[in-house]
């Protein structure tokens, strides 16, 4: 096998490992921005095509996770902007593409649709911050770097979002 073929195989394996490790986080961040599972799936695929294409240019100035999620966030924001620009029919806007499903219970106590409605009240940036902190467990600094916002913005948005979401979660506690 040629050296070029070997290098390509190794690159493919590397990308596949990155997909396995980060696809869930990419999907979650994308969905927090575009608010639609099908669109978030598209954004996830597009994100990893960019990762595959540019992985050799990754300079390691941030963590790989930050780099991948930043591409995902930019891709999601661009997708949303494209949809907003082209949508003439309000029913084609993202918030209406993914209707709230019938009530499902989380741990028998929390209704997902209630929580989803509370998240809808937050802006896109705040939802992204919530996902990266509360689900992915990223530090304030890493979130700030990933979303290209100052650290105090991350902190204050998170404080407010937690207050709002806590009310929803509290309602469902026994």
């Amino acid at each position, binding site marked *: 096998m040629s050296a070029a073929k070997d290098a390509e195989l190794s690159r493919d394996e590397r990308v596949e490992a990155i997909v396995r490790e980060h696809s869930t986080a990419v999907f979650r961040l994308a969905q927090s921005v575009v608010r639609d599972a099908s669109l978030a799936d598209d954004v996830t695929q597009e994100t990893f095509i960019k990762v595959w294409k540019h992985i050799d240019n990754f300079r390691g100035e941030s963590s790989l996770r930050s780099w991948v999620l930043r591409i995902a966030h930019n891709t999601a924001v661009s997708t949303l902007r494209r949809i907003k620009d082209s949508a003439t029919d309000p029913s084609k806007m993202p918030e209406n593409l993914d209707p709230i499903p019938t009530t499902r219970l989380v741990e028998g106590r929390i209704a997902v649709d209630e929580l989803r409605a509370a998240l809808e009240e937050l802006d896109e940036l705040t939802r992204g911050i919530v996902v990266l902190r509360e689900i992915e467990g990223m530090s304030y600094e890493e979130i700030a770097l990933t979303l*290209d916002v100052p650290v105090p913005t991350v902190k204050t948005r998170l404080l407010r979002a937690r207050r709002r979401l806590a009310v929803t979660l509290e309602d469902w506690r026994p």
Partner: protein
Amino acid sequence: MAWIAFNHPSRKRLLAWLEHVDDGDDAVGGHETDAITQHVDDCERCAGKLEELAAELDGSPSEEPMGAALRSVYEPPPGINERVMKKIDERKRSDRELRLFLGIFAIPTDAADLMMPDLPADGGLGRDWEEEE
């Protein structure tokens, strides 16, 4: 300076903003919410005040139940990795075909990349967010 102090929201307004008060005398309306959000994004003093306020409030949620609940809202559909890898394979094939086509006309592949960029020059680390309205 007095005008700077005037621009900072009062403790009461910050509290109403933090608690999403949307009715009664202390309600924070849409424009005020946006203004305070914008202000605290840039003001370390008010951001610090908010942290103090949040610490003083009772019933701060523990993080773990919130994370578990959020995971169920943002749950990826099954087979996402397979779909991604399939998409990458499709892209590889179309790239190979494009390069073959360009080769026929002796067009450098770098030129094709310039014609069809899919990442900004800074490697995707652009400032897309700030361009949003």
